[in-house]
């Protein structure tokens, strides 16, 4: 070894060892989570449908729930030019980014509505209501027809029109602007 003598290195290592007692593999802090506990908190839904609950929904039932619980902010059809416009089909010449022209996965609609909407009463909808609303929004955005039933099997199979445009970030720093 050049520059630094092996004796100094050994001393250095010894000193290091004295000041840093071995970190244990585990500390044993925290308590085991029960399955019931996990299930009560785990509301996430993956694009492959994992996490979707039992139940189903359709356009007509979704429309009446939407008018009762969502229209006050998003307009009666969801297509009104509100700050959070939800409806504009793919190819429509509107600037707003909507479920129809921008969202890459249909499962996200269920996940987001169940966790965060209605804004004034988040977390208040039943799974059945969320399925109905999901069907209503998919149909209004011309992604499914009004007879399609939305459930844990059909929802993850829907191919969203904007999906084809999504690309992963490839900025890496260095001498380029991306």
């Amino acid at each position, binding site marked *: 070894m050049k520059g630094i003598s092996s004796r100094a290195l050994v001393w250095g290592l010894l000193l290091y060892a004295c000041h840093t007692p071995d*970190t244990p*593999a*585990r*500390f044993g*802090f*925290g*308590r*085991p*989570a029960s399955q019931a*506990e*996990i299930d009560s*908190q*785990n*509301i*996430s*839904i*993956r*694009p*492959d449908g994992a996490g979707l609950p039992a139940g189903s929904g359709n356009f007509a039932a979704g429309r009446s729930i939407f008018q009762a619980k969502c229209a006050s902010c998003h307009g009666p059809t969801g297509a009104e030019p509100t700050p959070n416009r939800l409806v504009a089909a793919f190819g429509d010449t509107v600037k707003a*980014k909507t*479920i129809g022209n*921008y*969202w*890459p*996965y249909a*499962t*996200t609609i269920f*996940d*987001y509505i169940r*966790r*965060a909407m209605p*804004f004034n009463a*988040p*977390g208040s909808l039943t799974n059945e209501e969320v399925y109905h609303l999901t069907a209503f929004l998919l149909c209004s955005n011309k992604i499914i027809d009004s007879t399609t039933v939305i459930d844990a099997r059909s929802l993850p199979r829907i191919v969203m029109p*904007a999906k084809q*445009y*999504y*690309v*992963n*970030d490839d*900025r*890496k*720093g*260095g*001498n*380029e*602007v*991306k």
Partner: protein
Amino acid sequence: MEEKNDKKIPRRAMLKAAALSATTALMGGVKVPDPVKTGVIPDPTKVQGAVPGKLGTRSPFEQPIKKASEISGRTPLQDLYGIITPSDLHFERSHAGVPLIDPQKYELLIHGMVERPTVFTLKDLKRFPALSRIAFIECSGNFRTGKETMTPQEICGLTSQSEWTGVMLSTLFREVGASPKATWFLAEGSDAAVMTRSIPMEKGWKDAMIAYAQNGEAIRPEQGYPARLFLPGWEGNMNIKWIRRIEVSDQPFMTREETSKYTETIKDHKIRQFSFDMDARSIITYPSYPQEVEKGWIEIRGIAWSGRGKIDRVEISTDGGKHWNNAVLQEPVLDKAHTFFRYLWRWDGNPAEIMSRAVDDTGYRQPFMKQLIDARGSDMGGYHLNPVTAWLIERDGKVLFKPEKRK
């Protein structure tokens, strides 16, 4: 001093009374006007000052404030002299307001692809070996333009810096036995948006932290009390506040905040997803609107930062971008951290255009708006915009923002 004699007025009370009468309180039933409001300040060497209090105060002459909207509050960058943002001036952005969380009831659940699904209380988290790190957090939607009368706070006040303390996520991953096959984890907040983002495990193992302290004290509610995720250099939204759950997985969850939001349209209608790193940028905070300057020596000041590493240098132009010179970087120059810069300039009194440009240690140089438009197209979204920003100094010493055109 001990106060043994009951009949004597305790010294503390006397001091307090003296201080009160010296400032605002009652004198023989007559209310003395507030000296700060009237501008009639008594000679401070001739009256007793205020006695020590339970909390420190700002001088009544200094009133830096956040600029708040319904959804965010911006840091007054132009009022700061260093790299640490006072905790009460740290920017905030939330999607469903700031929740009130009882630290006694707080729990963090880690489950999914782990050997031992575990619940940690706040006390548990604090028992683990801790680490502190100074780094910025910036919202990825941190750029506004449009008019000349804009302050640094209005242009890019959604960035702030603190010393964060907590337990490294890698420590917790080891504790629960996270699977080596796992590639992503979901972080979930306990606000009314139940905010969720998917994060690569690689970042979790590398430098992610569950932070419970900010600038030496418990984290502020607006920043995620009692605990938040901290991902140095990555877009603010992913640093999930009020974190309650981590689900270890082998794929991203494609939540609303990583699809409908926090993605940007780029050329050919493409939509860029998972844009995690914050690109390098800088802003001159002095002189800036609405300050005014005088002819002669001016120390140009500002901050520069990069989500990819350290600031290598900050280049300054005082002639609209024709010539550039390096500013002096104020130590410490830290990884993924706001870095303060200074540049001495003699202003001759003629109209001038001053600007700063950050270069980080990957060699990335902060672009002009035109370069961003060329790279991403004019329909580019509002996320990850980090253009060079310029200030116009007028003959009378007034300083105005030079608005960047988006097209």
